């Protein structure tokens, strides 16, 4: 290609021409190079922040589900409670023990999560202890005993005889769990959890807890009757049968609790 004279004239003079940049040009360039590195670091911070946020949300969600679990557990309980329809009493005992262990865990979580009024906390802990004791007793006795219900009544009688009624009442409604047979211990544990949860939502649950307290007193009366010999083994069996049949009809855990009471 024939190079144009004008082209050549200009390119010869301009090709290697150098202008002088202003004095601050390098520092401007440098500062443009720096922020890129800072930005990259900032991006890592953002990643870290997002990760933490996900963790926090995950944790909150986990707490939320744990707090809402008692409902689920009650449902499970009722499903388990339908078993006695075909099962013998030994099986029933197993059923009693297993959910208990679960419920203790759950109460632990509740204690850890929310800080209740000191008294209430104390109570829950006491219940846990008594539950644990009963578990021990049940485990020790279960393999050798043919009729668990009978044994329970013996124990009931002994325990009630040992303890003074005034002490029981002064300690509140919790301590008597010791004098009630294992089936009811579940309900006691439940009851405590319910009271406990009631603290955060007082309006909705006060009536419920009142109802339970009176029901609990009834249970205590039954226990006293057993001790005094006014209610015999047959009567207890009838109560139990009622319970089972009610579960069959039943509106889940809510009804089972009423029948026991």
């Amino acid at each position, binding site marked *: 290609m024939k190079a144009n004279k004008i082209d050549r004239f200009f*390119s010869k003079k*301009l090709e290697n021409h150098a202008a002088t940049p202003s004095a601050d040009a390098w520092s401007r360039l440098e500062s*443009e190079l720096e922020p890129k590195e800072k930005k990259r670091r900032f991006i890592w911070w953002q990643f870290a922040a997002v990760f933490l946020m996900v963790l926090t949300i995950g944790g909150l969600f986990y707490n939320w589900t744990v707090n809402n679990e008692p409902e689920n557990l009650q449902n499970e309980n009722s499903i388990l409670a339908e078993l006695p329809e075909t099962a013998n009493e030994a099986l029933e005992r197993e059923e009693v023990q297993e959910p208990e262990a679960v419920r203790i865990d759950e109460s632990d979580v509740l204690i850890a999560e929310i800080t209740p009024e000191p008294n209430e906390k104390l109570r829950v802990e006491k219940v846990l202890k008594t539950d644990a004791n009963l578990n021990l007793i049940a485990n020790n006795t279960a393999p050798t005993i043919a009729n668990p219900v009978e044994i329970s009544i013996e124990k009931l009688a002994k325990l009630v005889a040992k303890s003074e009624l005034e002490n029981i009442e002064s300690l509140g409604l919790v301590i008597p769990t010791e004098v009630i047979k294992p089936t009811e211990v579940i309900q006691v544990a439940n009851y405590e959890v319910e009271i406990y949860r009631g603290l955060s939502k007082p309006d909705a649950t006060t009536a419920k807890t009142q109802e339970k307290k009176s029901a609990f007193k009834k249970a205590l009366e039954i226990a006293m009757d057993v001790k005094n010999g006014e209610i015999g083994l047959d009567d207890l069996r009838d109560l139990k049968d009622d319970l089972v049949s009610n579960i069959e009809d039943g509106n889940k855990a809510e009804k089972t609790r009423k029948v026991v009471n």
Partner: protein
Amino acid sequence: MRLQIRKSEQEHQLAEGCRNGDRKSQKAVYERYSGRMLSICLRYIAQRDEAEDIMISAFTKIFQKIDQYKGDGSFEGWMRRIVVNDCLSQLRKSRNMYLESSIEMLETEPDFHLLEDHLEVEDLMRLISDLPIGYRTVFNLYAIEGYSHKEVAEALNIQESTSKSQLSRARVLLQKELKRLEDQVNFKTRSYESK
């Protein structure tokens, strides 16, 4: 020949330093080439501040994308292409580039020898800056950067024929201006002689 080899060796060493993100090498590259790169920018973008901004951002691009320089061609040539492309994209962003106007060809050619002796580089830079933007861009790419019409057409997203017509119009305008300058030079020398 030996000089050229030494030059390319230095270039490669500097490029290698930049590749490692070494700030000293970056500054050395800047010191060595910023003037030439700024001169390129000024040919495309007449405003000094704007041209310098382009130069600076082109250098940041050069340092960040240094890995794309394979080292097989000249380092300066690679940098020039980046600077030219940045100028072009700036022009695309901000201006309506192509104006068509009819310019009659000039019969007489300027006296290049005389002009070469009397004109400074800055005068030529000014002539280019004063060109309409479309003419200027095509003239820069074709006449000074050495692009073909095909490359110019691709770079500016125009027809090759447009590139050709813009170039010839740019030449005509420059020739006119050179003629005017020649007259001035002649006038000065003549008045000097008469004294």
